[in-house]
């Protein structure tokens, strides 16, 4: 009796075991196939554009659905420019917030603020986009853009750098919205990163008489330097690929931006605006080709980020 039930248990194990293992491995394979599928489908879909325009697709800035001529330089420059400006605003602020919460803020206050920032990092980007469109853009146009436009002499450097339609929809405000969007995310991850440093290391430095600045500068930051770069790359990856926070407010112009306050476009905003209304096969292919370029850029950035963060749990 006991023998029979034991053998039937083993029999039950046989096919079920293999089947379950197969299902698990199959799910992982499916996921990897999906990633490969993204690259392949973007390459196939964008191929007609690369064939029609050759390498010039990358460095010409004509984007004209009427004559059916497309060059990606405008959106590529717009993507890199907005992401870089956004990062240069968000990085120092995020580092400052994380250091403040970990080093100076009393724990009773630091924990709720930390949690609040983490929760804000999860708010959908379309909310940031709407804030940019309805609050930031009008404010920026009235209080920053107009005064500068009125005070800058024609032909002066200020006129060159800050010229543009004073409606608040431009590369710079799009970058500001991006900065506000990645700020809570980066601050939350930096804070988590700093909290992984064993407290006795910092306490030892304080015990030697170091000031807070010296502890942060010579202990905290050097001990997680690689990971800090990794987090910066993660933030950059977010900013490069973000669609909704940017599309509302960048002004949607495909020419190369002539100034910081000029309308522009990013790759993601161009795809979001035009894909469902693409006028012809070549237009659609050019948009998919833009998608492939964005994929390659972000994949590179995110791969570096993950390689740098490999030792951490972030």
């Amino acid at each position, binding site marked *: 009796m006991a023998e029979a039930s*034991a053998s039937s248990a083993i029999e039950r194990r046989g096919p079920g075991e293999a089947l379950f293992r197969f299902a698990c491995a199959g799910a992982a394979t499916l996921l990897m196939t999906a990633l490969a599928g993204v690259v392949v489908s973007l390459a196939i879909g964008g191929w007609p554009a690369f064939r029609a325009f050759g390498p010039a697709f990358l460095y010409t800035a004509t984007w004209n659905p009427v004559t059916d001529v497309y060059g990606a330089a405008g959106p590529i420059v717009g993507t890199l420019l907005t992401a870089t400006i956004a990062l240069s605003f968000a990085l120092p602020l995020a580092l400052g917030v994380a250091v403040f919460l970990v080093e100076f803020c009393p724990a009773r206050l630091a924990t709720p603020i930390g949690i609040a920032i983490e929760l804000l990092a999860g708010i959908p980007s379309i909310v940031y986009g709407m804030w940019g469109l309805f609050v930031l853009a009008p404010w920026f146009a009235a209080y920053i853009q107009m005064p500068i436009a009125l005070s800058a002499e024609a032909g002066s450097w200020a006129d060159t750098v800050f010229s543009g339609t004073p409606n608040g929809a431009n590369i710079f405000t799009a970058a500001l919205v991006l900065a506000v969007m990645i700020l809570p995310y980066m601050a939350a991850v930096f804070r988590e990163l700093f909290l992984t440093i064993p407290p006795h290391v910092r306490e030892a430095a304080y015990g030697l008489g170091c000031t807070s600045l010296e502890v942060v500068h010579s202990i905290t930051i050097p001990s997680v330097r690689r990971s800090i770069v990794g987090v910066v790359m993660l933030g950059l990856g977010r900013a490069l690929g973000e669609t909704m926070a940017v599309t509302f407010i960048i002004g949607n112009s495909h020419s190369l931006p002539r100034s910081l306050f000029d309308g522009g476009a990013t790759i993601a905003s161009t795809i979001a605006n035009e894909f469902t209304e693409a006028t012809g096969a070549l237009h659609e292919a050019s948009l998919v080709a833009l998608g492939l370029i964005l994929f390659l850029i972000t994949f590179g950035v995110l791969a570096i980020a993950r390689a740098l963060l490999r030792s951490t749990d972030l």
Partner: protein
Amino acid sequence: MTRADRRKLANGVFVALCGIATAIALSLLVAILWALVGRGLGGMGILLFTSDQPAPGSIGGLRNAIVGSLIMCGLGMAGALVIGILAGTWLAEYASGTRTAATVRFLNDVLLSAPSILIGLFVYELLVAPFGGFSGYAGAVALAFIATPIVVRTTEDILLLQPAELREAGMAVGAGRALVIRRIMWRAARTGLLTGGLLGFARISGETAPLLFTSLGNQFFNADAAQPMASLPTTIFQFALSAYDQWQNLAWAGALLIAVAVLIVNIVGRILARESHLS
């Protein structure tokens, strides 16, 4: 000025700068929440949930978009949970420590933060273009692709957190690996698995970009996922960019609705995560 004074001064400036950075960051975030609540609260009401989107200039709600979002997020989440839990289990239980697992984990982490608009393009090329039409199913597939990496990640983390003795005890009474995983490991890890699901759900419920070219949107009420389907984020996108006050107000109400829903789901997820010792 002595050296000690200089150090003190530099430190004071540093502390002040960090404090200012925190003040700026918090006031920006408060400004966003202020605008969101201030402009969205007026549109909140029973009508928002009971009537469909209005023609420009008339009164209405967002019922069609809310229902579409729930259907697509529900379908997408179901797919993401099945694929994600199985793939995460494979990483933690079968392939743990191998090179293949390291590569899969690495690529999964990249997929985790890949631009969501590209997932939309991919699903368009995969499902919409060849099968001739936008549909709620295509939208659900796009959302599933976005949620799956999150579920994979939390599943692997939570399974690796379980004590090895659990596995050994199961093996010791003669259970096979699959049985141990299904009956013991998953059961022990169920709060963590639920957390992964909630985090994934919170992420996709606000996603707009991947739905633009997959589910497209629909101005009428529609519960048939084989047809183009409205969703809250795409409707908000359309209404916010419109020239009509009524539509813009509905967009703010919808944005507030999504933000509140995402916050609640994330808070519940965090509480569960703490219970299961997932950081």
